[in-house]
C-alpha cells in the first residue's frame, strides 16, 4: 500500500493501524495522521515518503558532548530483563574491535549470578571484567572499576547495573548514588549514561525514561530485541517527547548483535 499521489482514506486507515500496532501510541499516531496529508501535498510526496520525512523529523539528533576523555566511562541502566548485561558485552566488543582497551564492570551486586553472567562474556570476548560478590555495595564496585581503569590506562569502561522498575524510589536513589560515586572516582565520569529498553515495551517506556532521567542524566537510549516482531515505536515516541537520542539497537543474543542506530532504517521498518 502507500502508492504515490494523494493519500486516499483506505491508505490512511491502514497507516493509522500500522502506527498503533508499532506502539507509537494514539496521541503520536493522531499527530502523524494530522501532519501527513499537508506535508505530502506541500512537498509532492507519496504517503510512504512523506511518512519517512515526518517520522525522521521527530527524532532528536545524537549530540554527544565533544572531548575525548580516557577512559570514556559509560553507565548502563534500565528495567529488569531489558538487555543491559548483554548490551554491556556487545558495546565492549564493538569498542575493542575499534582498537580501544576496554573494561567491563558488574555493578549489579543484587541479582543471582549477575557477576558470573558478565564474567562469562568477558571470557568469551577476551575483555577484562571487574566483579564483586553478591551484596557488595554497587557504588564501591563502580568506584573501584573506574579507578582501576584510570590507573591502568583503559580507553573505555562499561558499567553494568542491576535492573530496577522506575516506580521504586529507593532503587532510583541507589542509581543516583552509583552515578555520583563514579564521578568521585574520575571527574566528569560517567561520560555516557544509556537507558536500555526492550523493543517490545509499551507505553510504560515514557514512565521508564521519566523515572530514570530523574535519577541520572540520560545521554542516550538503546533499543534491544528488534529481531523480534516488535517495532520499538514506544521508544520512538518517548525519544521524540523527551528529546533523548536513540544511539544503538540490539538484534540478537550474540556478542556482535548490536549496531549504531540508523534513523532511516528504523523509521522505514516502523510500518513494515
Amino acid at each position, binding site marked *: 500500500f502507500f502508492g504515490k499521489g494523494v493519500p486516499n482514506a483506505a491508505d490512511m486507515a491502514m497507516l493509522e*493501524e500500522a502506527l*498503533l*500496532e*508499532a*506502539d507509537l*501510541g*494514539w496521541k503520536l499516531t493522531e499527530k502523524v495522521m494530522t501532519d501527513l496529508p499537508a506535508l505530502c501535498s506541500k512537498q509532492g510526496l507519496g504517503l510512504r515518503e512523506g511518512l519517512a520525512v515526518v517520522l525522521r523529523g521527530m527524532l532528536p539528533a545524537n549530540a554527544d558532548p565533544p572531548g575525548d576523555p580516557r577512559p570514556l566511562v559509560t553507565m548502563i541502566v534500565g*528495567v*529488569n*530483563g*531489558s*538487555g543491559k548485561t548483554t548490551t554491556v558485552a556487545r558495546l565492549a566488543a564493538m569498542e575493542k574491535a575499534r582498537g580501544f582497551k576496554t573494561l567491563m564492570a558488574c555493578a549489579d551486586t543484587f*541479582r*543471582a*549470578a549477575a557477576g*558470573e*553472567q558478565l*564474567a*562469562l*562474556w568477558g571470557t*568469551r570476548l577476551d575483555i577484562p571484567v571487574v566483579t564483586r560478590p553478591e551484596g557488595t555495595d554497587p557504588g564501591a564496585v563502580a568506584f573501584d572499576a573506574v579507578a582501576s581503569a584510570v590507573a591502568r590506562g583503559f580507553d573505555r569502561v562499561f558499567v553494568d547495573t542491576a535492573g530496577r*522498575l*522506575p*516506580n521504586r524510589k529507593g532503587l532510583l536513589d541507589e542509581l543516583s548514588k552509583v552515578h555520583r560515586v563514579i564521578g568521585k572516582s574520575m571527574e566528569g565520569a560517567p561520560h555516557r549514561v544509556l537507558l536500555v529498553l*526492550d523493543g*517490545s*515495551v*509499551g*507505553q*510504560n517506556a515514557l*514512565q521508564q525514561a521519566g523515572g530514570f532521567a530523574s535519577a541520572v542524566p540520560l545521554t542516550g537510549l538503546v533499543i534491544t*530485541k528488534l*529481531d*523480534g*516482531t*516488535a517495532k520499538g*515505536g*514506544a521508544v520512538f515516541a518517548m525519544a521524540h517527547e523527551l528529546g533523548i537520542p536513540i544511539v544503538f539497537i540490539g538484534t540478537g*543474543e550474540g556478542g556482535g548483535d548490536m549496531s549504531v542506530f540508523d534513523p532511516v532504517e528504523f523509521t522505514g521498518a516502523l510500518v513494515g
Partner: protein
Amino acid sequence: RLAERLSETFRTLSGRGVLTEGNISDAMREIRRALLEADVNFKVAGRFVSEATEKALGGKVLKSLTPGQQVIKIVHDQLVELLASGSSSLHFTGSPPHVVLLCGLQGSGKTTTAARLAWWLARKKNRRSLLVACDLQRPAAIDQLEVMAKKAGAGFYCNRAVSDPVLVAREAINQARLQQYDTVIVDTAGRLHVDQELMDELVRVRDAVKPEEILLVLDGLTGQDAVNVAVKFQERTGFTGSVLTKMDGDSRGGAALSFAAVTGRPIKFVGVGEGIEGLEAFDAERLAGRILG
C-alpha cells in the same frame, strides 16, 4: 483518570441517566484511548469497545448510577469476564511427579518465576519441587537458577556436560521420581516466537516431559506485540495459561487483556517482585481496575 474523563464526556448530558447512541460513542472513544494507553492491542481494544457498545445500547438503565458510571460498570464487568476466563489454578491430575514447563521471550522472568512458583507451591499447596535448568544457552543461566532454587528451598537439577535440553529434561524426571519430588518445574531459554528452530526445540522439550501445565511467562511491560507472542506460542505449545511479570511496576498491564482475548487461556499468576515471595495468584478484578486506570 477514566472516571473523570467520562464524567467530562457526559457533562453536557441533559437527560437523567439515559445512555443514547451519541453519548455512548463519545464515551467509547475515551474507553478505547484508555485501553490503548494501557497497552491493550488495538484490534483487541476495537473488538472490546464494539462489544461494550452493544451492551450499553441494549442494556437497561441503572437509575442509581450516572451515565458515566453506567458505562464504566459495563466496561469493567466485561473486562473482568474476559480476564477471568478459564481456571486460574494449576491442575495436577494422575500420579506425580507433575511437570510445569515455563516458556517465553528473552528476559520475561522465567528463571525467577521457576523459583517463585516453587516457593508458592511449597507455602500454599505443600508441594516439593525440583527445579530443572533447561536453559543451556544463556551465560550463567544454570548458576542463576541454582542460586534461586536454594533461596526457594527447592530441589535443583542440571547437567552441565550436555548441550541438549531434552536430555536434561528427561534425566530430571527420573531424578524427581527417585527423590520423590511431587512437582518438576522446567526453566527454558528465552526464545523469539518467530525463531523456528528454537520453537521446534521447545516442542521437543514439551513432548519429552509431558507437562500438566505449560505457562507462557509474559512481561507485564509489553505493548502491542503481546498478541503476536501469545498466538505463536499457543500455536506451537498449546500452553495452559500464563504468568504476567513485573506488575510491581507502573505498567497498566494491557498485555494481559490482549493475551486473554486472543488465546482464551487464563492468567494464572502475577509477578510482583524479584524476591522469592514475588508471585501472587491472579486476581481479575484488580487487574481490570488497573487496566482501566
